[in-house]
């Protein structure tokens, strides 16, 4: 079912644009052209965040932090096995998918731990990564309460995910 959504959507967009007498070829080229300057602009931001995350992981700080905070997370209903995932999720997309894959292979795809991990990833985003990239084109320096609020929502989401996987 979900396999068909995108191709049908694309087909609809092309046909609709053609019906509206838009020159599809030129318009597509015009849009696609913008991808290179965009990526050139955001590359340094991606590099900076990825360097910091890889240093954090190799230094062992994240696993140390996971051990250290496990009583709190366990109290909230988040299993110890998933703490590193919850901690790293705000920083790295590819990193957290790699962690999810580890969890899936270690505990089995249909285990409680794996289902929790899937829901946590499905309902959260890479907050720090997204924020830096979104802001990369502006002069904004003060984000006020943006990051704390996003983090709170993400933690609440993780707690809810673990709870729902228990009962569903």
């Amino acid at each position, binding site marked *: 079912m979900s396999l068909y959504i995108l191709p049908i959507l694309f087909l609809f967009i092309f046909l609709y644009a053609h019906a509206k007498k838009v020159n599809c070829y030129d318009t597509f080229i015009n849009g696609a052209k913008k991808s290179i300057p965009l*990526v050139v602009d955001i590359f340094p931001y991606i590099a900076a965040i990825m360097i*910091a995350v890889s240093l954090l992981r190799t230094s062992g700080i994240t696993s140390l932090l996971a051990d250290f905070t496990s009583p709190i997370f366990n109290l909230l209903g988040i299993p110890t096995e998933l703490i590193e995932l919850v901690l790293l999720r705000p920083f790295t997309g590819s990193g957290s998918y790699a962690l999810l894959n580890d969890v899936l292979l270690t505990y089995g795809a249909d285990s409680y731990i794996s*289902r929790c991990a899937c829901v946590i990833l499905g309902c959260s985003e890479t907050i720090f990564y997204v924020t830096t990239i979104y802001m990369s084109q502006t002069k904004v*320096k003060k984000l006020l309460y943006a990051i704390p609020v996003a983090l709170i*929502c993400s933690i609440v989401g993780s707690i809810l995910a673990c709870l729902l996987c228990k009962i569903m």
Partner: protein
Amino acid sequence: MNKIWLCMIILSICFLLWTDPGSVLSQMLDSSKDALTLSIELCAVYAVWLGILELVEKSGLSEKLARVLHPIIKKVFNINDPLTERLIAMNISANMLGLGNASTPLAIKAIKQMDTGSPVASTAMIMLIVINATSIQLLPTTVIGLRQAAGSTSAADIILPTLITTIFTTILAIFLVKLCAKLFKRGEK
């Protein structure tokens, strides 16, 4: 962001100094290379999406979409610029379909459009960031794909809990941003 990033770097280097000092530079170079690889991949992905999105924009579809979502966007973001509204409408739709890579360039454009040159983020900007951060996803395609690959017998059974969680956190996010915006305004007076 400066403080967070600096803390991450300094703490990590301090730790690595007495565990594995040789790995500092090699790790940094490796991840910079990973970032470049990712950027090149993103460039290709964005070319496809920006091309399609230009068609959506030029054919007037985005206007239609914005009109459908207008009451919600109006209420949540409280903005008056029609272009920003269209961009946000497309960003949210892309998010719902689980197209993270399509929604990112849209959000960047929307934020740029809202930028007034002020160093402080506006409430609408924060709202967009937070809503994207809680990711209103109807179809977590990547996660389902990974789960299937790992041999799950019913890979799609995480859709319902994900949906409930994602709707709940998005509502919570909107509520919290509104609340904080009020508190901050009161603080300024």
